[in-house]
Each structure stands twice: as C-alpha cells, then as structure tokens.
C-alpha cells in the first residue's frame, strides 16, 4: 500500500516528518517496506531561466543558451525544440545523476561548444513517462527553487498491510492508527448525504448468497473527461494511471477509504434492473481430473479486454433482467458498460462482496485488481452507503450532474457485537502496566466503543475491525499503540530440568552419527526432501500419494524414498565441476507414504572412490573402508554390532547385486544396507561410477535399555597370555568367509577369543573355484597355561569345525 504525506494530511493534522511517520508506523505494526523520496534523488536539480538562446554554430537542431541558474549564468547546449529565451525550466549541474537517463553529467563539448550543465525534461526527472521537450514551469518560480518543490513531488511511503487490517488499505485508516499512536489529530470528516433529486430509474436486486448488499444511484448530466491536475497527481504519485474523472474518483475513494466502487455508463445498460447473482457456468472440476475445456455457458469480457468464464462460485453483476453479465462483483467491471469521455449518465455502485468468494474468484480468474484485493481482505460493511455519498459529492463537484435517490438491495453483514473485557488482562497477557483510563482512550481512538466499568468493560469493535473478536485482540491493540518498547523483560520461571538431558535416543543418535561421520572424513550435506518421480521410482518410491500437486520444479515433484539419489546427484555435480572424490553424508527424513509414521530417519553416506593417487598405495576408497565406517557408526549409535548378520546380496535392487549386503538382526530388523550402487541406476542418474554408499535406518536400531544406575559390569581379565595360531583353509570361492569364521570361532567357545581373516588368496596353488582364507585364531587360556598337546587338540577341533562348512586345511 502506497500513500503520500500530503494525502495523509487530508486525514491527519500533524507536523511530523516522513521519518517520524515511518517510525511510528513501524512501531504500530504497519511495516514500512520502503520510502521513495524524490527529494534525495532530485536534490541537484533546481529551477533556472533561459536568458537567451541562439542557434549552435555547427548544428541546426541545437541551441546554445545562456541560463540563469543557482550557480550563476551558465552556457548550456540544448536540443529541445521548446528551449527559448524567457522559459522557466529545470537545470542540472555537471556531476548530477539524471535518473531518467541513468547517466551522470560530465563536462564535454557538444559539437565544439562546451555545455556547462543540462536543461531537463519531465521524463529525465522521472516525473512523467515521456515528454517532448524540456520542462515549462510557471515564470513566478524563483531561480534556485528545488525541483522537488517546483514540481510538487513528495515522498511516497510503501508498507506491508497484514491480512487482518484491510482498513489500512485506505489512507484514512492509516491516519486513524497514527492519530491513536499520538502522531497528530484525526480530521477525517463525517460523510454528508447528498439528497436525491428524483427516484432512481434503475432498480437493484441481489441474491444474498452472491452479494449481501448492493447500493447505487444514477447521476445524470455529468461531463466526463480528464480529471483535474490535483487528482491526476495524487493517483500518479502512488503509481496509478489516471483514466477519466469518473473512474479516477472511484480509484481515489478506493485508496482513500478502502471503499471500492464501480461506475456504469447508464446509456449502455440494457433494461432497468441491475442484479447481483451467482454465475451460471458449470462447477469446476477439482482434484487430478483434467481441467475442463473452456465453457461458453456464461462469459464476461472485462474492462481489461479479456474474456472470463463465469462459474457458480462467482458473483456476477448482470443487466437485461439478469441475463447479460456486465461485471464480476468486487473484482472487475465489464467492457460493455464502462464509462468513457462520452458518458453523460452514470450509475454508481457501492456494494459489499464476500471476502472468501472474492478471493476465490480472484484465484479462479487470475484477476488481482485493487477492488479484488480489498474485498478479499474485507472492506468496511458499515461504509457502503457512505462510500456512495462520498462518490456522489465528488462527481457533482468535478463532473456536475443531478443525483437520483439511493437504491439499496440486501443487507450488510451484522456489525461486530460487544464483548466483556477486563482491562487487568493487559497486564496479565502483555505484562504491561497501563492505567485503565489509557487503555480506554487507546481503544476509543481506534474506533472501539467502550461502555461499563472495571472489571467488566463492554467493548464493541468498529464495523471496519472484523478481525477483533476477543479480549486478546484488545490487548494487542493497547500494547501496540502503547508501544512494544515498553514491554518488560521478565526471566522465565525456573522449572525442574530433566536429569538425563533433553534429547530422546533418536535425537541423540542423529547427533552422534553427525559427529562420527564428520570425524571420519565425510562432509555433511543437506539436500531437498523431494526428488523427481522417475528418480524416486529407481529407489522404490514414486507412489501417487507422495507426488506434489504444485512442485517448484518438475524434477522436484516427489518426496524422496531414500537419501541416496540426492547424494548421487550431488556427487555427480561435484564431479562435473572437477571434484570427483566426494565423501558425503546426510541425516534426514525419507518417506514411505504420506502418513506421519511413514516418515523415517535415515543416516546415509556416499563415497565416490576417486581418491587422489598416492605414492604409498594407501587405499582409502574401497567398499571395506566404507564397511568399517558403517560398523564404527553403528557401534557408536549403540547397535549390537556383534550380533549383526551380514546378509550378502539381499540389499535393495539399487545396489550392485554382488557387492552389497544388509546388516540385520533377523530379516525383519534391517539396520542398514551398504554396497556399491548399481551401475544402471548411476547411469540413469547421469553419474559416473563406481559409487559406494550406505543407509542406516535409525528407528530400526533397538532402543538402548534404560538402566537405573550407570555402573558397568565387572572387568574380567585373564592373567594368562593369549596366543595366536594361524590356519589357511581352502573353501569354495562363492562361500561367504563369514561362514568359515563363525565355524572356527565356535570350535571351542571357552578358549577361542577371536577369529579373523587376514588374507584371501586365489590363483596359483589354489584349485579353480576355490579360495584360500588365512585365519588368525586368538586363544585365551582362562585357568592354566595350555600344554602343547592341548593346543594340538584345539587345532584339530578348529580343523574339524572348518570341515563341517566345507573347508579343508591347506597343506
């Protein structure tokens, strides 16, 4: 919403500066977005008079002028045809920035004659859109008068109107709040009724559902044409285009009082009834049905020249006994009955259109007019006839004519009802100490009627404050006018704190995972919760319920079923920039459905194993590094790592089938999947492989047991030295090593503390289809040192156990 200081002063008696007004607005909740101040922009420009003008010696279309300026007499070259001796115009000195040209003036000769400045047109000062010569100003203006003053330009204040305050969409409403805030005296006068001279020959009728109240009157014998300069200036200053007097008057009142009006050329009306009713088009299809083909049941060519389909949710204004649409109520009038310079009889409409219906019509048609904006937010239902009288008076003043009596159909919505208010609630809710007298004074200044006595005042909101319906609203009114600066700063009362910290196990695990992976060389990324539906399908997602109806971009139209595609794409983007060695992780949600419980927390990591070559051949990029990182992570998260099964080849299909596995506590408790990503999936994502990744499903990790005490179990150390024995076994190449390790470790559970593969070999000396696994077995005697015979017996048990899984001791 834009307005100027002079316009505000029509309603507010004040000496406040623009800055004081801006500050007061901000602190009263009218958030100023910016102030367009031509005074700053046009500071270098001043009034000057051309003393003489002579033709340029070398150019027919240029004149060399001697100009009286604020800087003394200057010789200035000017190309404008209207430059002539005696003309009062605007001068820009060397060094001035000319906003309309976007250049800063420098001293340079024009065809051999040095120009010591510039004479300006209105367009060059951005005071008009175009101009065909330098400015021609009244001779009475003294040389050196600032251009801003000479042109009557003033600051424009632009602020954000919150949706609860449509009354701020009128300058009078702004003035009321500023007056309440102590910035001046409200001087908006009461509206006087203009008596009708004859009965209105046009009847109005409403379908109350479509339009609650519709008022109007005919004014005949008007002279329409360009509006007076003051009216044009006022509209232009806030960015509106003057059209003709009748239309300009409706725009003025729309911005002055937040009271949109419409004017019809009565000569173009068919019949003698104007009705407001619902549209006759078919119900719009909703949901994922294809949108209906344009229908021709009922259409309107609006004032913007476009044709609109009229639906049954819209309020249509019609003449010809309700048959011909001539407007969309509260949104835009029709082309057929618009006022032009030839209009002599005008029908003025002042109606109240329902906010929700108007908002929907705006959305359905895509029209966002000043009227639609105001009606959608809710204009004052108590000002329908007043608005009409105000318009009548201005039309009679500017266009002449003779008014009919007012006709009204329907009834305005009921005024807000009084409710009880204890002024002590201001202290209770806001913490502010405000005397009751001041509370009442603030409310009354804002238009509220206050009756009764403490502790139960009866407060009636004004008709334009339909947002106020409870005592908390009144506290806000009092607090914001008294000023939030006065709010006390009161420490929160102490509360008992949770002894074990505030985070749940799940929240702690996310934190631990984050710090663990960052410490182990992974960079944390945060990627979108959405991906493309095609990509989602590659990762087992893409269900209809997870597809967005209005995505920000086509490739972000579906909730992600996995974090991996996002990390793959991130790694691929980095590779395309020349950084192929990404190691990324993300901790965030994935979505298996649209119900709350379908959202799962996942810790995902990805390794693009393109580490820099190293002189020492240290390997850092392989799948077993990733597996180590994953197991370390799971251990930090409190997963029972020792009990985890590695289910080779049963990971999801977006992994390489031979190079992936699940870590699980049984098939229904999958804690993680890891492996190399499937080359076909990478290709579909336009990513160069290989890429290695894991996903940890945090909720699948068993909750840690809540223990009453934090003491640990006793440490059981053997006094005897452990000893190591190495075995090499031959086993089928496709048999998982874990089977053999498990068998070996189980050969003597009392003595064998650990069994670990330390070498895998296939090749010369190993039969085709077999592999050699070298296993180090750690034997921990518990009671006595083992004799050679006992160790040999143990070795025999190990070999026997290995044979049970098909392994043979390598000779």
């Amino acid at each position, binding site marked *: 919403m834009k307005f100027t200081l002079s316009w505000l002063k029509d309603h507010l008696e004040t000496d406040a500066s623009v800055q004081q007004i801006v500050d007061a607005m901000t*602190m009263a*909740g009218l*958030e100023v977005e910016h102030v367009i101040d031509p005074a700053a922009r046009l500071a270098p420009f001043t009034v000057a008079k051309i003393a003489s003008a002579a033709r340029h010696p070398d150019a027919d279309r240029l004149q060399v002028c001697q100009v009286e300026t604020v800087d003394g007499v200057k010789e200035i070259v000017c190309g404008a045809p209207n430059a002539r001796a005696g003309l009062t115009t605007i001068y820009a000195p060397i060094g001035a920035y000319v906003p309309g040209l976007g250049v800063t003036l420098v001293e340079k000769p024009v065809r051999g004659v040095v120009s010591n400045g510039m004479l300006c047109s209105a367009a060059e000062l951005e005071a008009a859109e175009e101009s065909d010569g330098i400015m021609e100003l009244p001779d009475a203006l003294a040389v050196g008068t600032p251009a801003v003053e000479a042109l009557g330009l003033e600051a424009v204040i632009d602020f954000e109107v919150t*949706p609860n305050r449509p009354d701020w969409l009128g300058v009078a409403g702004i003035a009321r709040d500023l007056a309440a805030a102590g910035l001046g005296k409200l001087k908006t006068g009461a509206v006087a009724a203009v008596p009708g001279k004859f009965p209105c020959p046009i009847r109005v009728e409403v379908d109350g559902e479509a339009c609650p109240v519709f008022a109007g009157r005919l004014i005949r014998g008007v002279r329409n044409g360009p509006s007076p300069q003051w009216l044009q200036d006022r509209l232009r200053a806030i960015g509106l285009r003057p059209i003709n007097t009748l239309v300009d008057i409706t725009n003025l009142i729309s911005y002055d009082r937040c009271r949109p009006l419409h004017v019809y050329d009565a000569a173009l009306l068919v019949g003698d009834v104007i009705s407001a009713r619902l549209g006759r088009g078919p119900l719009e299809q909703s*949901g*994922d049905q294809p949108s209906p083909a344009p229908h021709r049941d009922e259409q309107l060519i609006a004032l913007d020249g476009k044709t609109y389909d009229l639906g049954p949710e819209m309020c249509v204004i019609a003449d010809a006994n309700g048959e011909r649409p001539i407007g969309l109520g509260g949104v835009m009038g029709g082309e057929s009955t618009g006022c032009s310079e030839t209009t002599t009889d005008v029908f003025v409409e002042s109606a109240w259109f329902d906010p*929700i219906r108007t*908002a*929907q019509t705006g959305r359905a048609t895509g029209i966002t007019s000043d009227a639609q904006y105001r009606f959608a*937010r809710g204009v004052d239902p108590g000002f329908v006839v007043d608005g009409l009288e105000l318009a009548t008076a201005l039309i009679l003043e500017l266009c002449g004519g003779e008014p009919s009596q007012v006709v009204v159909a329907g009834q305005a919505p009921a005024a807000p009802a009084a409710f009880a208010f204890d002024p002590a609630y201001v202290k*209770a*809710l*806001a913490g502010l100490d405000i005397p009751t007298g001041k509370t009442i004074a603030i409310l009354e200044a804002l238009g509220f009627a206050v009756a009764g006595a403490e502790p139960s005042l009866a407060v009636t909101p004004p008709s334009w404050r339909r947002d106020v319906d*409870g005592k*908390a609203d009144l*506290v806000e009114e009092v*607090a914001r006018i008294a000023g*939030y600066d006065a*709010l006390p*700063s009161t420490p*929160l009362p102490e*509360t008992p704190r*949770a002894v074990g910290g*505030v*985070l749940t196990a*799940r929240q702690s695990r996310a*934190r631990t995972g*984050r*710090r*663990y992976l*960052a*410490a182990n*060389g*992974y*960079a*944390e*990324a*945060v990627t*979108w919760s959405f991906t493309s539906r095609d990509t989602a399908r590659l990762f087992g997602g893409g269900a209809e319920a*997870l*597809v967005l*109806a209005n*995505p*920000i971009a086509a490739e972000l139209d579906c909730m992600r079923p996995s974090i991996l595609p996002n990390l793959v794409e*991130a790694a691929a*983007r*980095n590779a395309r920039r020349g*950084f192929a*060695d*990404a*190691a990324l992780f993300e901790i965030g*949600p994935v*979505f298996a459905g*649209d*119900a709350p*419980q379908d959202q799962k927390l996942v810790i995902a990591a990805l390794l693009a194993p393109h580490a820099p070559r190293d*002189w*020492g051949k*240290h390997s850092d990029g392989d799948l077993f590094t990733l597996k180590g990182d994953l197991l370390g992570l799971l251990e930090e998260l409190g997963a029972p790592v020792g009990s985890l099964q590695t289910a080779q080849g049963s990971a999801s299909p977006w992994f390489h089938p031979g190079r992936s596995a699940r870590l699980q506590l049984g098939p229904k408790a999958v804690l993680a999947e890891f492996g190399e990503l499937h080359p076909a999936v990478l290709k579909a994502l336009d990513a160069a492989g290989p890429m290695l990744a894991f996903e940890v499903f945090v*909720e699948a990790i068993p909750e840690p047991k809540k223990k009453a005490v934090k003491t640990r179990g006793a440490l059981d150390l053997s006094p005897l030295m452990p000893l190591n024995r190495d075995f090499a076994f031959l086993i089928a190449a496709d048999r998982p090593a874990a089977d053999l390790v498990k068998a070996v470790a189980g050969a003597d559970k009392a003595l064998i503390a650990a069994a670990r593969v330390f070498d895998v070999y296939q090749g010369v000396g190993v039969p085709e289809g077999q592999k050699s696994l070298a296993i180090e077995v750690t034997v921990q005697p518990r009671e006595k040192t083992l004799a050679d015979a006992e160790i040999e017996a143990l070795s025999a048990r190990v070999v026997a156990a290995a044979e049970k899984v098909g392994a043979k001791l390598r000779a």
Partner: protein
Amino acid sequence: MTDLTQLQADLTGQIAAAPDAAALEAIRVAALGKAGSVSALLKTLGSMSPEERKEQGPRINALRDAVAAAIAERKAALESAELDARLARETLDLTLPAPPRRKGSVHPTMQTMDEMVAIFAEMGFAVAEGPDIEDDFHNFTALNFPPKHPAREMHDTFFFNEGPDGERKLLRTHTSPVQVRAMRVGNTTPPAPWIAAGQEPPIRIVVPGRTYRMDSDATHTPMFHQIEGLVIDKGIHMGHLKWTLETFIARFFETDAVTTRFRPHHFPFTEPSAEMDVGCDRSGGEVRIGTGEDWLEILGCGMVHPNVLRHCGIDPDVYQGFAFGMGVDRLGTLKYGMPDLRDMFASDTRWLAHYGFSAFQAPNPVSGLS
C-alpha cells in the same frame, strides 16, 4: 716375562684390528677359549711351585682380564658402528606426503541447529518433533487460520493430490503444527514414538525441523529449516517472551552488543503478535549484527492465540503462553556470513569444506558455541 708382554701386545693388536663380530669371536676363542693361548698359560699355574705361582699368577690373570676387556670394548664399538650403518640405510624421505585423509565436516545449518538447541536446553526446553507431511488441521485450522483465509495463501503451500478419502495433505509451511501435537490434550498415542505426544501444561519445548514453501531466490528456498519455541504455563506473559528471545539472541550471536526490537505484526496463531528485529549495519553490502543503526527482521512470535489453545483442549483462562519461530538457515547465514541461502542445499564440496564445522566443535555450555 717378555712372553706375556708380547702376547698381550699381539692379542690387543688383533682385537683392535678385528673387522667384525665374527673375527673378534675367533680371536676370543683363540685366546680365551678352552684351547686358547691365554687359557693355556692359566693351566700352567697348577704345575708351578708356590713361589713361582705367587709371582706368575697375578700377571697371567691380569693378562686374561686385559684381553677380555679389550674384546668387550671392541665388541661394543663394532655393534655401535653396525647400528649406525643400519640407521643410515633406513633413512626415509620425510618430505613425501602423508596418505591423503578426507576432511569431514558438519553442515552449517545443522551446526546452527545444534547451537540453538543447546541454548534452549540450558533454558529448560525439551526437543519435540513432528512429520514433514502434514494435514490441513495441524498446519492451518488448529492454528486459527480460518478456511480459505488469505493468510493461507501467503504461505505458498506445497500440496499433494487429493487422496481417496478426499483429504489433501501438504508439506508443513512452518514447524507450528508440532505445537498443536504437543498441546493436544487427547493426543496420548502419537502415530510414531518420535512424534510429539500431547502433554499437560506446563509445556516448554523447541521444535527444530524441515519446512517447505513454494519460493526460490537468494533469500528463499523451497525447503528450509525452522526452530519453533512454545511455553505454556500459568502467568506467562509477553515480558517472558521478550526476555527469552533477548537472552537467546545474545547467546546465539555470542555478543552482548546485539540490540533487539519488538514490533507489532500479525500471525493468525498468536495474539498479540510481534516480529523481532536485530540491530545491524548494512553499509558495505553485507549485514553485520551487533553494530549499526539499521534493523533486520529475524523472527516472528507472540502469545499463543486463545483459539489455538481451545482447539487443543487447553482452557485459555487458566493457561497462557508464547510461541516463536525462526529460520535456522537464515540465522546461520547471518552469523557465519554465507551470501546466498541456495548454496546451503547445493552440496558443493568446496562450499561444505569452507563453511562446514569440525566434528569436534559440538556446541556445549562449557566450551561455548563456536
């Protein structure tokens, strides 16, 4: 006599000239071994007369001791030389690089979130969570957004297609739906254990999480992070809100110099409502907090609207309280100086390395936040 002197001179000469441990051992055997020259002299002592033995004994023993000492000395010298030679052979070029190590990092938004949670935890707030895919009731209706109200349009909501039951789910536009879940008296068994359950007042929670709006430019991204705060108790008023946020902002920006200002604003779910600005300096193209004459809006807040309390089954005549919400990414960019919010979610490894945090910089009240 001369024999002994000569023998000692010969032996010590051989010992000194022994080139290695093996040669030295051969000399030792030849002198001190069972059949060695010195051993043979020692054996002659048995056949001597007492007088002769008294004279020769000390001399022969001295010879033996001197030879043994010379051998030990030479042995030590040879070993030392051998070690020196081995060490020289073992020299490594330590100017060669260490094996490459990837440097991991924590994302600045997550670091910021951890900082915020740490501050609020100190102030007695617990952490509550809720789903990203919400329904109209939790995101709007229960928060006092009237149906079809223009305030809903201002939220630029992402919607899903209408389901078979006619319900249209949405992506939460703020973390406030979790307020509703935490306050709803009947909500004793949430859909999943991690989702906030309804609790009786007093309530003091923060809600960090992902939020979504259809917006994309240098200061808006379609997904962003918010942290929401909610305090419900008897006698909580705007003064408590002001203190909480002033205290938070000073601790977050880690300076007492930061100034704040509360301005009236409008949110459907709070009454009275406010926005908080921090003092800043915009000269020089970037925003600096804690200095300057300018103001920057950083969060919205207010007293929980009585209608919201009623929707949740809490009597607004008994309990009242405040709520606030702020953009985590945005506050992170203000504190740590990232110029463009969109970079936060672009996963450029160079950006992550530059703006990320070490794993060991976990915010805590002992070592400070950052």
